[in-house]
């Protein structure tokens, strides 16, 4: 077998439950049976007879691809296209509904940094626990222990419970353990989204080193196109559960970007199993009308609707980008950037954007539901809008439409003649 990963006609079907709130209770089921036994029997009979068809949703269907040893392959696609489902099947977390995957060699997966970290345990203890969960043997952990500690830069806090760690230290330690895995195949999901830029660079460096020196096969799912460009020679584009394109990274990213259009309403199919997730983002102009083309000197608003299925402590952030992956700023749902407790239910957050914030041009933003530096529960990216020039904007007249920069803030200039 020359391929290390061979995926054949892979499919994953979810049955959509139409009740909300994530899970059901035995109490509800029992009361339902007692209150209306006839209706219950009727429903059961229909299900058995196959009349009552449940609504099926194929998160992945007819997925075929093969990867050669030592290849680093990126996986991109819109939110809900099936990237994470693919990775979950490859790691064995969830079984496929149809098809087959063959993988050769030792497999390790990194879907989250710090999986299984326990806040009460010390750094030292968590290294061993996390290592064991990631599939390292005790021998490997002992061998790599010093190197893990050195990379994480936590020597002094080795015997402190990790609940006292700063989020930076926590992520460093977690990534450090993960990067010392020695598998033949490494499956990585959106893990670089946590942590600061400095650390992300360090991680990317480490990953590059690992792939070049040790010839490891990596499948790397990310929204971060520049990271994909840097690491991966080839990329898979997944759209609506199917492999749309599998070619060199440049070609695939080029094609992917050309698909991007901006809509005033963006709907995201909910992924089963997520504790909290954004389901709809709409952009409205100053009069509350849906629009993704907005005049520079008028305010507008973003309506973010999200669903919480389990009690969640998190913060909703919105990160604004200008063209070319330039992060302009990030803003949190709570002004004091505190985590908030969300009970199960649906929510809507409206964010008011003042006039003259963004300059004329194309922008896009992402929403994140997270505990910064610890856990990223949901990320929705590439929601775009366009800021247009308005005819009666005095600045446009002065600069004849060439007002430069990404921001259009109007600052107060007080000039007095001093001599």
């Amino acid at each position, binding site marked *: 077998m020359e391929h290390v990963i061979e995926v054949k006609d892979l499919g994953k079907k979810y049955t959509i439950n139409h009740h909300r709130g994530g899970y059901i209770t035995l109490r509800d089921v029992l009361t339902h049976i007692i209150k209306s036994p006839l209706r219950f029997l009727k429903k059961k009979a229909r299900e058995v007879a196959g009349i009552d068809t449940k609504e099926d949703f194929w998160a992945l269907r007819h997925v075929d691809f093969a990867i050669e040893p030592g290849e680093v392959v990126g996986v991109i696609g819109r939110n809900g296209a099936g990237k994470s489902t693919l990775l*979950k099947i490859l790691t064995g*977390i969830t079984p496929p509904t149809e098809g087959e995957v063959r993988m050769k060699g030792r497999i390790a997966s990194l879907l989250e940094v710090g999986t299984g970290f326990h806040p009460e345990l010390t750094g030292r203890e968590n290294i061993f626990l996390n290592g064991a969960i990631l599939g390292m043997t005790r021998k490997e952990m002992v061998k790599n222990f010093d190197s893990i500690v050195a990379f994480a830069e936590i020597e002094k806090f080795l015997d402190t419970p990790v609940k006292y760690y700063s989020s930076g230290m926590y992520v460093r330690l977690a990534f450090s353990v993960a990067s010392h895995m020695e598998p033949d195949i490494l499956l990585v999901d959106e893990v670089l989204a946590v942590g600061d830029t400095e650390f992300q660079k360090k991680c990317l460096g480490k990953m590059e080193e690992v792939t070049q020196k040790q010839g490891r096969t990596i499948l790397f799912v990310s929204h971060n196109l520049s990271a994909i460009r840097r690491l991966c020679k080839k990329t898979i584009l997944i759209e609506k559960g199917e492999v749309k394109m599998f070619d060199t990274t440049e070609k695939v990213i080029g094609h992917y970007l050309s698909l991007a259009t901006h809509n005033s309403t963006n709907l995201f199919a909910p992924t089963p199993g997520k504790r909290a997730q954004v389901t709809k983002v709409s952009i409205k102009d100053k009069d509350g009308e849906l629009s993704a083309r907005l005049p520079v000197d008028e305010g507008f608003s973003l309506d973010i609707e999200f669903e919480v299925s389990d009690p969640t402590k998190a913060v909703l952030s919105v990160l604004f980008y200008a063209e070319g992956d330039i992060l302009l700023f990030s803003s949190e749902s709570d002004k004091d950037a505190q985590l908030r407790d969300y009970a199960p239910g649906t929510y809507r957050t409206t964010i008011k954007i003042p006039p003259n914030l963004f300059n004329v041009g194309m922008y896009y933003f992402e929403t994140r539901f997270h505990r910064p530096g610890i856990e990223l529960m949901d990320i929705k990216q590439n929601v775009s809008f366009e800021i247009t020039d308005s005819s009666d904007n005095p600045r446009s007249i002065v600069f004849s439409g060439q007002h430069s920069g990404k921001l259009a803030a109007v600052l107060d200039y007080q000039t007095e003649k001093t001599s």
Partner: protein
Amino acid sequence: MTSAVTIIRPKKVLSWRDFQELWEYRELMYFFVWRDFKVRYKQTIVGVGWAIFQPFMSMVVFSLFFGTLLKIPSDGTPYPIFVYTGLLFWQFFSTALGDTSSVLTSNQSIITKVYFPRLILPFASVATKLVDFAVASTILAGMMVYYGYAPHLTGLFILPLLLLITFMASVGGGLFLAALNVKYRDVRYALPYFMQILMFVTPVIYPASIAGKYSFLLAINPMMGVIQTARATLLGTAPANWFLLSLSFTACLTLLVIGIVYFKKTERYFADVA
């Protein structure tokens, strides 16, 4: 894990591979036991003493009310040592069952992010309680010295068998409840109440002989055989009832098999539902 070829296909309910995997992942199972043990004793001030304190206090309270005040018969042994022997096994069973039933939901964040055979979680959780059992047994040893009971040789030989039966009962019942708890999250709220009732129909604080000719009804409960035999052999009050014990063994083995099959059947949905 090995350098062999991994094949992922739609899942069958149960295969031989599942048991092989259980063995391959024994190191992770050990780490889960180690984690649970460490974490639990870090959170309490008295630490490991908690494992002794809990059954000991129950023994004192029961001895006072049922032994001294109500004068419940205890098959000719002092009531404290009588009730403690029962409590030791009962608490192993009830705490193991309780913890195991929520083992999937409490490890949800790991289950949805990493693959490992899910079966090791319930096994690890019951194994943790075995450590508690060992710690709490020291009190029994102390009491046996105090009341002048020399441990009978049969008792020591039969102890592993009793532990095995209790282990199977907790893992079997726990697997079933854990899988049920993933689907219906209110199971764990109903469980403590149910366990309390179950304790009163198990001869923990009274001898089975109290039920007279109906005592055979109590035998439906597999824990009865274990506790009866533990008392009979460890304290030497009566010869071991092998018939009762084999009945318990068969019942627990059946429970274990049902538990594993139901658990494996539900397993494929865990990561999607949890």
